[in-house]
Each structure stands twice: as structure tokens, then as C-alpha cells.
């Protein structure tokens, strides 16, 4: 299995084999972070530009650490302080970065499809670090990687995703990835946060958290973004916790070794109680560690994919 794509835009566009290649490559990269000298020269001389149109700390830092452990040079552009404020278009910004002879752009953007559009206009690699409500592929890959590490396989697993499904790119990428690898996915949210026609993605639907927990091998609890939409469909954080929050009480009725995931940052006492977040079922911090390995694998593969594309046109 070879990687031949210059970009990573979403899990929708990957085959099962391509997803598995990223996961197995990430496994090898995980070992690097456990060494005394946490650095390999694989991307020496390459430049990675983090272009973030939305505030993000954890994803940006994770990509930055990943790139640095591969010996790449990293430049961070936070758009609040850039010439986008002066009216530059996305494609112009991309072309300027390309003219700097950068090799990879890692982009977070509030518009769905922004990464795909940019990738089409540029020869250098584009990695989607989250675009609107569309996809956040590396988050889903690290979720799946963690799950596979914990349970040994993905095929045949029952995985529930709870939270604001309608506005969640993490949910969408997870659904694509998990279903391609043969897991059964169920989404759980208040009815107004379930997007129409989601069942066409091959998932089950429930608005009862106990039902989402029942028989599940894992539950991925999404962050409720009360700060993003002030007139949110769900008025009260506390009300959400009462109806949907994961508590020890509720976990008792689930499988004993159910894996509890959360992309972070956690709202303690809203999506889950502190006891659950810090409990034996939680793998939240392992997800952070695995995020580095997965992003190292993605940067390494797209860099190779880009070189290969360059060769093919000769």
C-alpha cells in the first residue's frame, strides 16, 4: 500500500487501506516520542505553515510539535494579525505561502470546503485541520488510533458519538473513518442537534444517552460549544448535563471496559462529570499523546505524496 495523495482533506475521500496506512505509520511514529531524543530527520529542510483562521491552541500546538519532531521548520500564522484583515483572499494567501517555498500548509478555517478549495489551487500539500462543520480528519484519525490501541481492532466495534452532531466536523470525520473500517456507529444528541439525513451516512440515531451507552465499546463525547452559538438550541448547560452528561451512575450500566473519549477541551460538569473524565475508562490524555504520532504520520505521508506527484508528471 502506497500513499500517493499530496493533501489530507477529509476521511470521506480516503479508502480503507489509506486510513489503515496512516494508522500503521502513526504506530511507528509513536515510538519516536518515547525516546530521549524525540526527533528524527525525516522532514529536514521542509517548511510547514500553520494557517489558522479560527483560534485553536491544542490542534495547532499538536501539529507544531509533530512537525518539529520530524525536523521540519514551522511557521504559525494567526489570521487575526495577518493581511487577511486587509482583504486578501484565501487563494492569494495560499499562493503567497507557496511563493515562500513552504512545503505543507496546515489549515483551520471556519468555512466548510476551504481546505479542498485551497488544495485545488496550490501545488504544495494542504492538510485540513478543521473546516467549518465539514471535517477534522486528524482528530478522527487520532480517535480511531486510540481506540485501536485500546481494543486491538476497529471492525465490529459499537461506537457511539454524543453531543452536538449537527455542528461537529469531528463527528463527521469519525463517522466516515469508523464506518469505512467496519465499526457500527450510533450518534446521540438532542433532536435539534441531529442533522437531517445523517442516517444516510450509515449510522444509528438516538436522543437517549443511556441507549447510546448500552452495549457500546466506546463513546466519543463531543464538546458542547456553548461559546460558539449564544442562542444555542440547547439553552442550559446544566440541563444538558442532566439529560446527556456522562456520569459514573450512567457508566455503571454500560460495558465495564467502555472507552470514553473526548476531543477536548472538556467542559467538566457539562459533557461529563469530573469523575468520569479522570476515571479508569477515560483515554482523554492518551488521545493528546497519540495526536502527535498521527499528525507526524500525516505530515510525513503527504510530503512523500507530494514528491511522488512531482515525479509522475516528469
Amino acid at each position, binding site marked *: 500500500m*502506497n500513499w500517493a495523495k499530496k493533501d489530507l482533506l477529509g476521511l470521506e475521500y480516503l479508502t480503507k487501506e489509506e486510513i489503515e496506512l496512516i494508522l500503521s505509520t502513526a504506530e*511507528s511514529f509513536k515510538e519516536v516520542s518515547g525516546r530521549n531524543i524525540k526527533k528524527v530527520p525525516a522532514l529536514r529542510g521542509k517548511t510547514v505553515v500553520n494557517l489558522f483562521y479560527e483560534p485553536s491552541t491544542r490542534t495547532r500546538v499538536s501539529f507544531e510539535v509533530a512537525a518539529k519532531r520530524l525536523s521540519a521548520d514551522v511557521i504559525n500564522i494567526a489570521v487575526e494579525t495577518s493581511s487577511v484583515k486587509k482583504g486578501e483572499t484565501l487563494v492569494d494567501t495560499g499562493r503567497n505561502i507557496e511563493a515562500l517555498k513552504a512545503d505543507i500548509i496546515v489549515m483551520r478555517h471556519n468555512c466548510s470546503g476551504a481546505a479542498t478549495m485551497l488544495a485545488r489551487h496550490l501545488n504544495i500539500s494542504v492538510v485540513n485541520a478543521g473546516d467549518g462543520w465539514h471535517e477534522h480528519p486528524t482528530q478522527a484519525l487520532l480517535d480511531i488510533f486510540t481506540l485501536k490501541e485500546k481494543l486491538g481492532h476497529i471492525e465490529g466495534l459499537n461506537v457511539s458519538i454524543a453531543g452536538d452532531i449537527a455542528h461537529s466536523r469531528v463527528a463527521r470525520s469519525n463517522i466516515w473513518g469508523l464506518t469505512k473500517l467496519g465499526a457500527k456507529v450510533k450518534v446521540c444528541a438532542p433532536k435539534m442537534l441531529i442533522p437531517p439525513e445523517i442516517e444516510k451516512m450509515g449510522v444509528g440515531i438516538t436522543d437517549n444517552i443511556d441507549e447510546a451507552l448500552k452495549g457500546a465499546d466506546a463513546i466519543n463525547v463531543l464538546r458542547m460549544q456553548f461559546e460558539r452559538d449564544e442562542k444555542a438550541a440547547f439553552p442550559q448547560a446544566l440541563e444538558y448535563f442532566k439529560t446527556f452528561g456522562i456520569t459514573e451512575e450512567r457508566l455503571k450500566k454500560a460495558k465495564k471496559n467502555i472507552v470514553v473519549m473526548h476531543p477536548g477541551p472538556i467542559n467538566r460538569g457539562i459533557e461529563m462529570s469530573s469523575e468520569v473524565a479522570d476515571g479508569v475508562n477515560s483515554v482523554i490524555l492518551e488521545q493528546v499523546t497519540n495526536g502527535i504520532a498521527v499528525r507526524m504520520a500525516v505530515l510525513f505521508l503527504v510530503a512523500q505524496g507530494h514528491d511522488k506527484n512531482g515525479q509522475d508528471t516528469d
Partner: protein
Amino acid sequence: MPGEIMKEKAKILDKDTINRSLMRIAHEILEKNKGTKDLCLVGIRNRGAHLAKRLAGCIEQIEKEIVPVGILDITLYRDDLTLVAAHPVVHKTEIGFDISGKNVVLVDDVLYTGRTIRAAMDALMDFGRAKSVQLAVLIDRGHRELPIRADYAGKNIPTAQKETVEVRLEESDGADEVVIVEKD
């Protein structure tokens, strides 16, 4: 290479001669290092790793001592990543012991340009400061592009550049043999 016709020219080593070579190398390693103290073997994936395990077996037979064996994947240290048509797959490095202060014997199947060994030495340096690094190979076929030599070699074989030496091992290829193949 797909599409290219490879002609098998000569069989240089078979199961018995491979075993004798490895046994001799094991004796030489023990002689040079005066026993197994501070000695460890690190094989370069894939076939070097198999050979390292076999060498450790030979050493155990001779000295009744177990020598630690590690596996090194050098993909991330290569200088030809962009030149390789088929992308190398990254595998795990497994060195479960501290190499600091140790005499490390790097093991590989074929020594050719020396670039793999250069990469392996770079990788090894990131794991600690070895007391010494030595090199054992089953076949030395010449054509070095870097100032690197083997401390222990099973067999020196003069080859032409258009020839390839293929080492096949039971563990990965189902049989023990070394052959020269020629691209037509």
C-alpha cells in the same frame, strides 16, 4: 522492479555456508570484544534484524551468554526518500535497552553504497552514546559511496553495478540463500 526482467546469475551461498559464515562472524565478534560484556547487536530492518537474532543465537551457543538484540528502522533517516519510487513503509524501531557505554554491532545483509549504514549510525546516535559501533554484514559487494567499511563480513563478492545481490532468509523469504541477479 516491475517490468524489468531479472536473470539469476549465480548462487553464492546456501543454507550451510550462510550458517558457517554467521558462526565465524560470531567468533570474530567475541574475539574482538573479548567476550559478551557490554556487547549488544542491532539489526537493520528487515533482513539485518533476522541476521542479528541468528548471530545472537550463535553467540549463545559459544559463550552460553544472552546478548541483547535490537531492531532499527532507518526509513526516517534516509537521504533518498524522494528517490525511491515505491514509498518505503515506516516500521517501528525496537531497542529495548540503553546503548550508552555499550559496544554495538550493527548487522545488515548487504553492504553496498554505505548509505544505509550512514543512516543507521545517525539513528543509533539518537538512542545514546555507544562506546563503539561495529559493522557486521553477510555480504560486502563493494561500490562504496561513503567512507564506511565492515568489521565483519561473511563474504566479499565483487559485483558489477547492474547486478544485484539478493539475500533470502528463511524468516522472510522461506529459504536460506544468496544469489546474484542481473538486470537484462
